[in-house]
Structure formats: C-alpha cells, structure tokens
C-alpha cells in the first residue's frame, strides 16, 4: 500500500523567528493545531490528546532551531509509518512560509492529519498579523 502524502503551506506576515518561537516549542502544539486539547513533552517524547479523547504518543526526531525544522512521528502500532515535518522559511524580515507535510500509513490518515494541520496553518495566520496577500488553498 503506498503511503498517503500531503503538504500544505501558508505565507505569514511575521518574521520566521517569531513564528518559529511558537512552532518550535512542541509543548505548545495545542495553541495552534485544532482538535488537540493537551500536549506534554519529556525529552524527545511527546504525547498529544485529541478532542475525541484519543491519546497519541509521538517521537520528536528533529527539532532544529537553525533550520527552523520540526519533525516527528506518531509512535503507535496503528500507524505502521508516519512522519510529519514542519518547516518555517524566511521570505523577508517580516514574512515567512510555513510548510507542513505528512507521510502516513494508513494513507487515509494523511488526509485527516494534513487537513487538520492546514486548519492549524490557517490559525497561525490569525495568531500573527494579517497576511500580506491572500494565499491559495
């Protein structure tokens, strides 16, 4: 079965450093990612609790402040494979692109996680100042 693979991106009218200050703190995921009610981090382990009550253990595999890259995988037998990646890329001193990609088996969950992440990117555009120009879906 091929993996499900999705990617979403948004341009945000804030500096990459400002946006990374939120995204680069994995314990604050629930501040911007919809449908997550709690989140705790110990070392390279993160546990998230979904609004459905489901808890998912995760392994943080990359947290690179210089690259502004966060990468993780869901560590559950239900997910034979998962990798999620968030990159924050400076476009100027006052704007950046945030890209979220997820590759997943089961492939259907790539759609579900990716769409929730896309809503999270929408949320970032509300948390930070109004985008400098509209971005396509």
């Amino acid at each position, binding site marked *: *079965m091929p993996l499900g693979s999705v990617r979403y991106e948004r341009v945000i009218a804030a500096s990459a450093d400002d946006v990374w200050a939120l995204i680069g703190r994995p314990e604050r995921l629930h501040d911007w990612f*919809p*449908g997550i009610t709690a989140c705790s981090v110990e070392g390279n382990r993160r546990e998230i609790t979904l609004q*459905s009550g489901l808890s998912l253990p995760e392994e943080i595999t990359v947290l690179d402040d210089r690259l502004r890259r966060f990468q993780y995988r869901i560590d559950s037998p239900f997910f034979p494979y998962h990798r999620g990646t968030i990159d924050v890329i400076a476009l100027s001193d006052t704007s950046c692109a945030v890209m979220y990609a997820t590759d997943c*088996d089961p492939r259907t969950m790539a759609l579900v996680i990716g769409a929730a992440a896309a809503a999270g990117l929408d949320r970032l555009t509300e948390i930070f100042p109004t985008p400098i120009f509209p971005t396509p879906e």
Partner: protein
Amino acid sequence: MGRRILFITSDQQRYDTLGCNGGTLARTPTLDRLAAEGLRYERAIPQSVVCMPSRSTMLTGQYPSTHGVWMNGVALPDDAPSVADDLHAAGYRTGLIGKPHFEPFMDPFMRFAQNRLSRDGLNGTYRGFEHLEFATHGARGPLHYADWLLREHPEAAGWFYPVLDGALEVNAMGGGDTGAPQVWANQVPREWYHTDWVADRTISWLDSLDTDDDWFCWMSFPDPHHPWDPPASEVGRIDWRDVPLPAGYPTDAETRERILDAKPRHWGAWYRGEVVSNYEAPLDWVPATLTPDQIREVNALNAVEVELIDEAIARVLTAIEARGWSEDVDIIFTTDHGELQGDFGLLFKGPYHVDGLMRLPLIWRPAPSANIAPQVIERPVGLIDLVPTFTAIAGIDTPETAEGAVLPVKDTDPVAPCQERVLTEWDSVLFGVEVHLRTITRDGWVCTWVDGDHGELYHLADDPLQQHNRWDDPALASVRDDLLADLWDHQPAMVSPLPRVQAPV
C-alpha cells in the same frame, strides 16, 4: 397552522427497488401507497452520485460547485444556506434524525460540529435543526445511535460488518453465503438496528411537539447503503437463490468487457482493478471477480433493507395519524444517489453517470388538504428542486441562494428556465487519482463530458440500460455538441478557493 413536512431519505437506493417503480424484489406497500396518492417522479436525478455533495444539495438547494462540497470528505461550510434555517425562521419546528453527512465522519480531532454535538450527547442546534439525533451504517463513531447502542446493548456493537479494515480502507471482506464484499450476517435484533432506531427517535420527537406546531422533520435512514448487514432475523424474507440477475448485468464476461471498453477509460479500469476512483469502493476488491450469485445475494439483502425502511415509515405515519396531523402533512421520499448493484458487473458507486446511480426514487405525497391530484411526472427533475419545494409548501419565498425551482405537480406545469435540463457533477482527487465529469440530462438524452477523455452519450428510451455509448457516433455529433453547449452555458462555476478535502469520507 400550515402544512407540515416529513422529508424521508434513504441512502444509496435505486429507482427500481420500489414496487411502484416496477421493482419486484422488495415489498414496499407504504411507499407504493404514498405514490398512488401523490406524485411519483419517473426521472429524479441527483446533482452528485455520492453522499456528502448530494446531501448538501438537498439541504442548500445548490449545486456542488456552488455549495462547495465537491467530493466526499469536503465539509459543507458552516455558513452554507440551510432550508432548515429558513423554515425555522418561519416558525417551523425542525428536526433531523438519522444520517446527516454534511461533514466528514472520519474525524479523530473532532473538528466538525456534526460529530462534536453527537459525542457530547447534545441534540441541537445544527444548521437550522433544533433537534438532531444522528446515525450511520453501524455502531462505530461518535453519533447518537452508536452511543445509544454501546450504552444500552454493548454486546451488539461488534455484530455489525466492519465497514473499514485495519488500514482504514473500505473493507473488501466477503461474507454471507457467497462471499460478496460488504455482506454480513448481523445478529443484531431488528429492534436495535438503525432503521428501527431512526423511526423510533422520529416518533419520539414528533410526540414531543405541540399539536399546533408546524414542523419539518428530515428522517434520514442510513440503509440500504452498503454494508449489506440487515438483522439476520429478517434475511429469510428473500432467498437470494430466487433473485433474478438485473437486466443491466450482461452475464457473458466478453459482452461486459466490450460494453465497458466503449465507455471512457475509468469504467474498464475499475472493472479490471487497475484504478479505484472512489474511496467507498473497496480498494482490495476487483469488480471483474463479482459472480452472479454474489449479485443475487447483494440484491436480496438490499431488498430486505428496503422492506425494513418501508415498514419503519409505516410506523411513523401511524404515529402522525394518531396525532391528527395526516391531512396537513406533506411527505417527500427520495434518496441521495443510487447503487450499481450488478449493472455492468459493478457494485457500489463512483464516477459513473448512468441510471443505476442517477435515476432515483422520488415520491411527493402532498398534504391531502392541498388538493393536488395524483400524477406520474415523466419529465426530469433534480434533487436541487427540493429546497424550493419545501419552502413553497411552507408558504415562504424560495431562498435567493437556491438554484432549483419547485417540483412540478404535473408534466404540463410551466418549465422553469433552470429546469430545462438537469445537471450532475463529479469531481474527485484522491491519492493520485483524479476524475472530473459533467453531465446533462435533457430531451431524452444523457450526455457526460469526461475531463481528459472522450465522453458518454445515451438516448434513454432507445438504450435504457446505457450499454451503447454513442459519443463518437458521427450521426449524433450535433446532438452531442448541442447538449454540451447547453451544459456549459448553465454549469455553475466551481467555488473558489476550492475547499480542501478533510478526510476520505
């Protein structure tokens, strides 16, 4: 007091499953009686042949391109029009009991109100409905029926067919006597099955209303959509061994393949298991393996489910009569789309705009107090006409957002400009497979444009099974081109930006 409205829908039901439409398998005396007393539509056409876009059309009165639910898994926007809002504003009590599916069911983040309200045990409000009790095809998920079953009869939860497999794909597992996919012996007692639950909850809600209330009740049965797992106690009603093969099933494989190969590529590609373009068709199942006995068993179980729905409707009508409302209740019965059920050697549904999926049962039994004479209406109508019909019954203006017109009550009624043709859309982009269709039905023809391929053209009277694609017939080129020109003149533009797919279903 005005006319009340009981809007009854099933899910994935063919036109020919009702006795009043010539069906011979299922006994449907209740719906047959309503048809005899009211208006029976010979060609009711959905604007999409999958659940979410079609149901959203029924609620909004808009084409999928306009309301934005362009495929399953796309959520209807929160601010989309809802006829329930209009009716509630006009003083109607509003209830939706059964299957909603305006938002994805696969929702572990609980991002969608449909699922959140159910999980929290709330009964409203939602898209203009003050009362809601939701159900779908089994005992999993957050909806009210699953919660009730797990609470009251937890032992029954595992008796239903597992719609999804361990990889979250639609299950190809076979069952029954023939090993047909999505067939299952379900030990659940009839009284606990979702069909009877929907009727029970509808009766309960209606009983809670004041006698003088005007009301709009959408009673939405999840059946006879697959899985075909009716209560085992009822399966003996129809012996599948006695079920004739459908007229649309060429028994000879060579003939099937020749018919399919004259159609656009996605037909034969699915039949041979090369491409699956609809999530709701099992990924691990190849239609070419479907046997005649499997078709018989599927159709027998489907007919059992249709009978259970008919009997459930009868109970609700008895309850309405007991409240003294019968003279002032309009009853409309239809479904969201059809089911192939063996036509062309295929099951389930997909980007296939032929009668199996596009010709729907539609019955409107006007309130007797309205004095509308019984009729059979031959001319094509669309589900897009339901919203204007509901508002007309209620005596309020058609919403400006609606794109259809009131259903005709006789064939000689003036034809509204928007009813000169009926349009049907298909768009899907899923795991690298992309299909786009646009179809027009008018003047006895059905013509489908297929993106990146040729198309399909059938004359419905000459080729009622749509087995002879005339798209490339030079003698019909002008007919085809005229139909396509009319289609593109009236096809609404797709909403922009395109709403994202949130889940596979």
